[in-house]
Each structure stands twice: as C-alpha cells, then as structure tokens.
C-alpha cells in the first residue's frame, strides 16, 4: 500500500522569505501523480501544484515549485516570497494504482505553515 509522510507538523517563515515543506512517499508503481494541496482556515482544499511522475522537469506555479526526486521518493514544496495568505495547512498527496486494483488517493498528515509579518 502507498504511504505519504510529512515529517514537519508545523513550520513558520517570515513574510517575503522562502520556505520548503518536505514530503516522502512509498510506492512500487512507476506511473503516478503527486500533489500539494493547501487548506486555509476556511477548510477548503485548494490544489497548489501537481507533478507527473514520468516528467523529470520539476513543476512550477508562480511562487510555488517542487523538487521531485523520483528515486528517493521525495516531493518537497518550495514557497518563494511567502505571503500572509500562504498561512494554511499543506497536504502532500499521491495518486496512482492501488496494488493492481483500481486507483488510490493517499494524503499525508499535513504541515501547518504560519507566515509571520
């Protein structure tokens, strides 16, 4: 079964600084997708960025970028020029085949990020 681990329960960063959130996962599959979701206090789940495992190039979305290391099964999120609105819970998620049966969507436990003024 796939697992997703986020080793940093809480992090903080000063406004305008850069912060990196860690994520590791475990799978025996070669084709899958990885995501970072943001959950602000409103509880809405908002897609931040996605990465296809077959692409070697790291995904970027404006101030958000990832460092995808497939061999190491690592998928970190870098937030540049942090803004107060980035304060939220961030979830790393895996989407891919589930042990030869269907598909599986697995979320990590989350990292609570606080951006300090």
């Amino acid at each position, binding site marked *: 079964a796939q697992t997703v681990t986020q080793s940093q329960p809480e992090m903080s960063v000063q406004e305008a600084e850069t912060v990196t959130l860690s994520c590791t996962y475990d799978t025996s599959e070669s084709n899958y997708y990885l995501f970072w979701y943001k959950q602000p206090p409103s509880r809405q789940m908002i*897609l931040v960025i996605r990465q*296809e495992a077959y692409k070697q190039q790291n995904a970027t979305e404006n101030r958000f970028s990832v460092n995808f290391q497939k061999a190491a099964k690592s998928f970190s999120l870098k937030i540049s020029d942090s803004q107060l609105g980035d304060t939220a819970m961030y979830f790393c998620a895996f989407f891919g085949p589930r042990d030869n049966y*269907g598909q599986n*969507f*697995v*979320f990590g436990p989350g990292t609570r990020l606080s951006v300090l003024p």
Partner: protein
Amino acid sequence: DAGITQSPRYKITETGRQVTLMCHQTWSHSYMFWYRQDLGHGLRLIYYSAAADITDKGEVPDGYVVSRSKTENFPLTLESATRSQTSVYFCASRRSLAGADTQYFGPGTRLTVL
C-alpha cells in the same frame, strides 16, 4: 452556481443514530469521493464512485454506506454513528481518474458524535 456543495455544514448527533451527509456536484463529473479528515491522519478515503450505481471501498469504509443513484449526488450514511466517527468529512469530484484532472473538494461537514 456551479460547483460542489455539502450539507449540512455542521452536525451534532448521538451515538447509535443514523446520519446522512449530502454531496452534490454540478459538473456531471464521473468520479466522486468521500474523505474524512482527522488530526495526524490527513485525509483518508472512505468510499468512491466511478459512476451512477458504481461504488467501491476506500481505506476506511467500515461503518459507512454510500449510494449513487444520480451522477450529481453521492450521499454518505453512518448507519449507527459512533464517537470514533467524529470528524470533518470532505466530498470531492473529478471528471476522470487521469492524473492531470483536477479533484475538486467541497467545503466540508463537521460531524460530532456525542
């Protein structure tokens, strides 16, 4: 407005009662999902549905029942609620299982079982 909605947003019930959480989406997405969110666990998949009348178990299905008679609705029923089912429940939908498709989440339902 188009989107995915959940009702009720908040619910308090007692142990042993039956509770149904509603989920409605307006995109005619084929796939719909129910997750529960608990501290330290992130989101865990309860059930999902590939189309009307097609459902399958996720990671934590015990104690829950789902149905999908119409594409746009995917209700989740707790037949006899237990305190361990106190959680925040999220419904989600997506057009297909292609990884590039976006999964849209509802606003969540906070359920408390006393």
